């Protein structure tokens, strides 16, 4: 599951492609942690090219969304693919986590 990074004025954007299954969720967590440790105020997880998102991936998103919020910072999902958007909606994550959703 390729993950690329792009620096932004206020933080960092991670572009995730392919299936976010259990093993890929671990890789995502490593990248999110690195982004947070780099001091980014906002971390965007761009899921436009993610074809699949399971509960393991959702737990990573939830854990670090909470952690960033608690630190006065922000983690947002950007441009979810239709399948990912469906999963985020089904689980009630969409409104609070997707950039521009609410």
């Amino acid at each position, binding site marked *: 599951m390729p993950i690329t990074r792009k620096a932004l004025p206020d933080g960092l954007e991670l572009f995730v492609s392919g299936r976010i*299954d259990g093993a890929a969720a671990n890789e995502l967590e490593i990248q999110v942690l690195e982004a947070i440790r780099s001091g980014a105020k906002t971390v965007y997880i761009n899921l436009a090219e993610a074809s699949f998102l*399971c*509960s393991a991936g959702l737990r990573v998103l939830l854990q670090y969304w*909470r952690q960033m*919020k608690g630190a006065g910072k922000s983690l947002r999902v950007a441009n979810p693919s239709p399948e990912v958007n469906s*999963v985020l909606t089904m*689980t*009630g994550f969409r409104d609070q*986590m997707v950039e521009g959703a609410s």
Partner: protein
Amino acid sequence: MDIVSEHRLRNDLAETRQIGGWVETFAQRAGLKPEVRNAIDLALIECVTNVISYAWNDSKEHWITVRLRASPGEVRVEVSDDGREFNPLTVPPVDMTQPLERREPGGLGVHMMRQRMEAVEYRREDGRNIVTMKKRTGEAVSL
């Protein structure tokens, strides 16, 4: 004639990487629409992940059996294991009224199984947990 596909995987989360390919091949053989394929894919990964995570508390190798069956108008997904008795239907539903700050992290997998499949059933038979999930396809099975 029904399309049937059977697989076995070890109780190792890395083994779940095979599931996407199994489902894709099965969906092509059965002529399933993408939304049906995606639903089976997600529900199956969640079900199998739960089995691997909770069915055994030793460090031994165990096997999980997955059966996919496409009949006219319906797909049936069965996951069975010889682990300790566990009925996923007893997992409390996710409280969607809670904001993310207060959400419990557990129960998401079973929630997604219930959301994506029209029926989720459990039985215990001959020392095995058997979870059966069904989804209507509204189409004939291709031969």
